[in-house]
């Protein structure tokens, strides 16, 4: 299978969607990134990344959940697809493997 690579920010957004579990849309994703990663990002960056992730097939989306505070407008809710899950798992696995390969003294000096 052709592997699609994930950028750093894409990975972050994908993780947030996974965490939010069905409640992920533009607003929540931005807020979670701000809260957990301490990064203030523009809405445009999140919006573009969401579209890109969907094009790559890592997430799927549907419209729904209109509320009054949004003036009756629908949200686009995102959900991680099987491919997305697998990509996240792959990354995790690869990181673990690499961490195990790291010699002990490197770890120690880097934490100093």
């Amino acid at each position, binding site marked *: 299978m052709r592997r699609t690579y994930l950028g750093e920010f894409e990975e972050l957004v994908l993780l947030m969607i996974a965490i939010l579990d069905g409640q992920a849309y533009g607003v929540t994703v931005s807020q979670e990134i701000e809260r957990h990663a301490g990064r203030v990002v*523009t809405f445009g960056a999140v*919006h573009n990344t969401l579209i*890109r992730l969907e094009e790559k097939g890592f997430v799927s989306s549907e*419209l729904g959940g209109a509320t009054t*505070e*949004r*003036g009756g407008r629908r949200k*686009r809710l995102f959900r991680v697809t099987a491919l997305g899950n697998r990509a996240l798992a792959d990354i995790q696995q690869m990181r673990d493997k690499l961490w195990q390969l790291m010699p002990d003294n490197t770890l120690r000096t880097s934490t100093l």
Partner: protein
Amino acid sequence: MNTPQPPQWAKTLLRWLHPQNTIEEVEGDLDELYTYWYARSGRSRAILRYLLNVMSVIPPFVRKRKSKTSYDQPFFLNPDMLKNYFKIAWRNIVRQKAYSVLNIAGLSIGMACSILILLWVQNELSYDRFHKHADQIVRLTCNAGDFRAAVSPAGMARGLQTQLPQIEAGTRLSKPVTMLLEVGEKKLEEKRVFFADSNFLQVFSFPVLRGNAATALQDPGALLVTEEMAEKYFGTQDVLGKTIRVNNKENFTVAGVLANTPSNSHLQFDFIIPMKTLAKTDWDLKTDTWGNFNFYTYFRLDDQAAASIPARQKLAKRIVDIHKKHVKALNVGFQLQPLTDIHLHSDLQIDLPGHGNIQYVNIFFVVAIFILMVACINFMNLATARSERRAKEVGLRKVVGAGRYQLVFQFLGESLIFSFLSLFIAICIVYLMLPIFTMLTEKTLAIHLLDGKILMSLVGIAVLTGLISGSYPALFLSGFAPVKVLKGKMRVAGGNLIFRNALVVTQFVVAIVLLVGTTVVYRQLDFIKKRNLGFDKSNLLYMPMTGEIWGKQQALKTALAQNPFTEHFSIISDLPTALISGTIEVFWDGQTSPNQVVFPNLNVDENFVDVFKTKVLAGRGFTSTFTGDSSNYMINEKAMQIMGLNLGNAVGKNLTFGDEKGTIIGVVKDFHFKSLQYAMEPLILRLNKWGGVVMVRTEPDNNEETILALEKINRQLNPAYPFTFGFLDKDLDNLYRTEQQMGGIFNLFAGLAIFISCLGLYGLSAFMAEQRTKEIGVRKVLGATVTGVVTLLSRDFLKLILIAIVLAAPIAWYAMTRWLQSFAYQTNFEWWVIALAGMLATAIALLTISFQTIKAALMNPVKSLRSE
């Protein structure tokens, strides 16, 4: 309202600029975020962040969400699709044979013309580029006022080389010499013999087949021959060391064999003799003169000096300064002319014959493009006119999911198939036409298909033609709305009609301009031919003096006078076709400032005025009764004007020409002694004491006898030399050979351009007639006459042609007056030429469409209306 609202204008901006398909969720999200920011950090910060984030979701920052299609399109280069395209294209070609033949014929004739012209242009541009140092070689040319010449003094080559380090090498070449060569039985006069310096073959890269290039031109008494001449005289290539007898007195040894001079060299020679041989006798070479202009000097410059025009001009300026120091009396300018410019950019006097003209190269290049354009227009016109037939196909393809780019590709591909088919036929036509074209241009042109460059440019032409001619139909056809097309509501849109009409107009503008061009070129050539030269050029036979005749002039005169066929003779120094001598050292009574005009001179005898039938306007001609005439002069009107004299006071004035003092005894009416491309120049006539050319005025009926009589005289007085003769009027016509060739080629291509236009018009009229079949049927049922119908159908085309005439007139006028300006003597550009060309174009066009219109008008209405 309890929820805070962001500024309205920002929202409007967002709605206006954000992509349509995501605006709903983005606007909602941003509203929600605004509320969140408002609650956290207050109004002003919330507004700021809101604005910033709005910015981040408008173009160019925002990513557009692609709307998902529910099916996959096949890749447009999918093999199955390609197969389909070819199949459809082939079916279209086969099913509509007439249309395909028209299209391919037009395109292939157009391409063949362009290929031929481009071959010629390429040949013209390739002159002298085969030399290894072509970019570094320049020729030293000079000018005295407006008189510009290709020659320079013998001493300057070496003299300048020692003073100017920029000159790497210098080599001199004599003017062409006529010599009598003899090997065994073969005894012939050769006109393309040159004397050249020993380093000639180091400066120029003429290939040496046998012998040593470095030493071949060292020894006096040696001789280089070309391959062709070796074959001609010895019948073999192996001629080193063999001897050739020259001018009945000296034996020369063949020191080398050169390859035949390439046809694209401005230097055309058969024999080269070392300059040292000439140096034994030539005064110029013995004295290393800086004042006599008799040699062609070529320099090889170093890279820096040859690199740019300013660098060359700077060097030329230094040469002028150096020359001025050497020869104080002369006021001469010098230029350095790049070798590669000589063939096309040179209009110098006293130059080697056979020059081209950059103007013609440009004109023909434009004509080639025009012809190709006309052919492309044909294709576009026919393709769009027939679009209705293919509209259903386009509609159906779109319904089953073809994208626009797929259709564009399909139609472009189809036109490429057409253009490559045409290219193939065009190459065949070129092969067939090449001998005829070679005859017209007198150039050996060849098309080497295996040459990568030529192959590339041919393919380039085909691709370009295919893309240009296919572009409009492709864009037009692919833009059809499937619903309309399939409903059968498709009518030819107005825009399309206008475009097509514009194309027809363009075609006819080109055709009319070319027609006018042909007419004007012919009128100008005719004008030159018929122009009164100031003497009677017909029935003037000449025999150049050769060999022993020089020493037997008195005997010659007696012999000529005794024979009734040759008794009207005159001996003059040069033929009045291209007089190549002149000086500015002329002094006369009442002269106020030093003379700066070059005065050519001609030596004539007592019979000149009678034999040439010129007019003496004042004074008298030379006569044998006045013994003092050898130091007297005659001048022409132009010279008289330059000297500030008039018919009343010119005779009797003193005139010093060179070193010789004398008196003006007569003024002769201006007659032309050079090509009509040059304006009349002043002329000084002296009494001929040396000889030159025997001119005989014959009667029209007894040319044969006169030639025989001259031959007999030559045999008696000059047995060692072959007899040569010529007719002056033929030589004069030869002066305008280039123009005549150009006229011929121009004519051919103008004709072809019109023919191609007519092919297109024929197709278009056929289509129009077909489209209006029903209309014509109804009209006929209601009582329309055949003439009425024909007029109806012709009217539309006639309108276009009238517009074309109006547009073409100023273009043709401008172009042709520009061309005429290159002649010193020109015909007037008459307006009736344009009227004639317009009428001719109209007549041809009407004739072309009449085939179709009459056919349509004669059709039985029952047939055309039956299907309703």
